[in-house]
């Protein structure tokens, strides 16, 4: 089960999420970032664009930052909002995903996904991470 919540942070935004495994965690954080960046935006483009994403990093935390940074870039530059993650596979520190996006204007500005205090940790329900966004 994917869950996320926004934590209280003095200057920026922190998202805490869980998943039963890494793909679910990455998926939960993808939707959390999307919800934040497009908060309150009800106007969605009709056409869905399918994008394949492949990433490789040195470890899972770095891979997570790369993953969310990619989604942030698509949102900020191409005005693409994640609608559905069709597939997400993580093997070692490599990710392959296929996702549907639609045209949408972001309502919030995020400067960057940071590595600040980032650790993917085992919890009884699976895995958990807290990601800090510099806004």
């Amino acid at each position: 089960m994917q869950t996320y919540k926004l934590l209280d942070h003095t200057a920026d935004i922190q998202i805490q999420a869980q998943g039963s495994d890494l793909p679910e965690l990455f998926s939960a954080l993808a939707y959390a970032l999307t919800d934040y960046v497009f908060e309150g935006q009800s106007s969605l483009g009709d056409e869905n664009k399918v994008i394949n994403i492949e990433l490789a990093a040195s470890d899972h935390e770095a891979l997570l930052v790369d993953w969310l940074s990619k989604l942030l870039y698509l949102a900020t530059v191409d005005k693409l909002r994640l609608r559905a993650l069709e597939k997400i596979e993580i093997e070692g520190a490599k990710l392959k995903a296929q996702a549907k996006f639609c045209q949408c204007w972001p309502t919030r500005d995020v400067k960057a996904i940071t590595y600040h205090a980032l650790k993917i940790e085992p919890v009884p329900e699976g895995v958990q991470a807290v990601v800090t966004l510099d806004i």
Partner: protein
Amino acid sequence: MINKEQIRKIGDYLWEIPHTYRSNMEVAARFYLSESALDSLLAESSLEQLINVACLPGIDRYALAMPDIHQGYGFPIGGVAGIRTADGVISPGGVGYDINCGVRLLTSQFTLAEIKARLPDLASEMQRDIPSGVGRGGQFALEQQEMDKVLNQGMRWCLKHGYAEQSDLAAVEEYGCFGHADAKCVSDQAKRRGADQLGTIGSGNHFVEVQQVSSIFDEELAAAFGLFAEQIVIMIHTGSRGLGHQTCSEYVRLMNQIMHKYKINLPDRELAAAPFRSSEGQDYFRAMAAAANFAWANRQMITFQIRNVWKRVLAIKHSEDLRILYDVAHNIAKLEHYQDREFIVHRKGATRAFGPKNPQIHEKFALSGQPVLIPGSMGTASYVLAGTEYAMQHTFGSCCHGAGRRLSRNKAKKILDYNKLLSSLEEYGVVVRAGSRSGLVEEAPQAYKDIDQVIETVAQSGIAKVVAKLKPVAVIKG
């Protein structure tokens, strides 16, 4: 976490954590702070971050923090590190995600009384002409070739295209252009991210404010800066926008990947660094310079738009009525010399504050020292100060940059009411033009620490001299 007993008081406002506190510290860590603020500082993680900065290879004398120290990424905000270029590193975390976020102050010849009736129109037209917030691109969208010119030339590009006057460049740190910038070191993704953002303010704590000189503390310095009582001035606070953020992200990522080959081990990934003289270090140095040039060009384009609004609304002929007093960067790394050695001085949420007779600042500031511009949060005071010889000797010519947050954005939205905030700002005499309700509440004065206390500490410790206090009369933000 460090406790009070492990910190030595070495001056009325100066504290030190000795380098023996942790085995991987190269130097001590020092910070300027009033004693009354120490307990709340100890409750944060910013001192741990400062201690981590003290671990950077090549750091000289001490890791330093200004009295507005608060938690950042890698470096604390308010952090200053003088790192030897001969054997030291450069760290993107010591500059920040908003490369050359900075402040510019424009001075006019008008008093508030003379323009008060037109203030709402001025504010409305500035809001209309200068995009702020999210989603509104600027009117100066750049193709790749032109973007590269902006990155390499900074304000010189603006001058060539009629958006700046020659006198503008003399009033800006580095004369508005880092000569070592190289657009080739900035990725295509970063350029795309900034392509429609030239001449835009952004969101968060960025703003354009019309302000009034409400107090003058040093008549001589005020006169040297062209400031007088009740004068209308305009402050711009913004940086390199998405281009800078993307550039920093990419180089933090790169440096984390290659650090091991230089046998650099650091306690925080956000502090990732490469030897200054390595190819990666030099690439970042040039990319940072290019993003800084974009930020100076950005503040110049906003200046151009403000001048147009000013002329139009006030029906005056000559926009030179609005002159740049100065423009400072508060997220930057610069090559500077102290005691015949070369340093790459990182300022992360800290402002350069060169004292009198420094050859790196324009001769018009030779007697006064460099103007230092400290923005307050929305609805609170901003300050103009002047750099001192004390700063040159003790802080790598550096000063604070503002007041940090006290309340999270969530808390601010929970406890502060938009309509009451708007009323209180209007009662305080501030015309507000904000792009979003949540944006306004998140940036309320109550959400920030006390800027007056920060400035008092700066003045008492000798880092800078207070020249004038500025009160906002109109705020334009996203």
